[in-house]
């Protein structure tokens, strides 16, 4: 993939994440902050489908943005064809694993499986 496309995704995910994380933080203000972190209230978030979907989108946006950022940092630290290939594929793999694990958590919590 061309670097400009990757960077467009990078900037887009950053903007999307900022907007959605802002919504996520604002939702904490709908009640007392300490109450919002109580077990039942946290589970209630996952049972509310639109909110659970938003968490999933945040997870994807932050994973893509974060791991691409890490890839860029690592590419600037060291160069070499093998190293760069390892970093590129490693980042994609780490991103996929994190998204899969996070999605599993959201799904399990949403379905009431603990």
């Amino acid at each position: 993939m061309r670097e400009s496309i990757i960077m467009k995704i990078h900037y887009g995910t950053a903007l999307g994440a900022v907007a959605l994380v802002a919504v996520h933080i604002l939702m904490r203000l709908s009640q007392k902050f300490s109450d919002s972190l109580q077990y039942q209230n946290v589970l209630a978030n996952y049972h509310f489908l639109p909110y659970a979907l938003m968490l999933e989108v945040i997870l994807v946006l932050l994973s893509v943005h974060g791991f691409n950022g890490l890839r860029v940092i690592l590419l600037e630290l060291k160069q070499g064809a093998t190293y760069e290939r390892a970093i590129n594929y490693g980042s994609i793999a780490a991103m996929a694993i994190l998204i899969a694990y996070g999605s599993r958590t959201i799904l399990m919590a949403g379905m009431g499986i603990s």
Partner: protein
Amino acid sequence: MAAITASREEKPEPTKQTPPPAPAVESAPKTITLRISRSNPSENSAAKFDEFQIPVQKWTTVLEAILHVKQNLDHSVAVRYSCRQASCGSCGMKINGRPRLACYTKVSELDSNVITVEPMSNFPIIRDLAVDFKQLFSTHKKMKPFIINEGSEVQPGAKEFIQTPNDLEKFLQFSYCIKCGLCNSACPTMATDKSFIGPQGLAQAYRYTADNRDEGKKGRLKIVDQSHGIWRCHFAGSCSNVCPKGVDPAMAIQLLRGYLLGFRK
């Protein structure tokens, strides 16, 4: 009466009085300590500093101070220079920690009695103050630094390319680059990413891309749009800060990004 005349002669009119000649301003040469980094990678010798006491006038440049060392104190100091008027871009070096042209930097403007000169960062050292420009020139060449246009105006019968002052203004500033390498030396990304194109190459890519006579935009954008290309610039702005010709490579990079992001056509 005679006495009166005499007294008048003794006291000339103040308006005709010529001011006393000003004492000749003969600025005594000041002595500074010039610390020159000495190293020879081919002999694996560790870099060290040699110190020289140099007499300087207020107009003495750092290059002149170095040449004074070469002529009078130690002829083995390696330094590259040519035009002595900031046109050739040969004498770039770190002067008191900042990349500058030695011929364009007066000792007096540094406000220090100790001047330290070192080879530019981010370049392989040949010896002492001379660095290898191979990568800079090779990258510059990769950017296709020429007008690409099938309908060349030099062909018989062809019309000349029309270029308005506004068209010229888009790239004129960036065409002042003298390839001195100071921008690459100051670039923090180049310090870690040896494959990075660098501000010099990217600024030149923009210079020709923005030229309305040029038709090689697509090819150039493809060259800069790679993993060690334009996206690795973090916009620190150090390149523009040290450019002796006011080229502003940092701005060129942002403008070039505009083409890739679709903001510019």
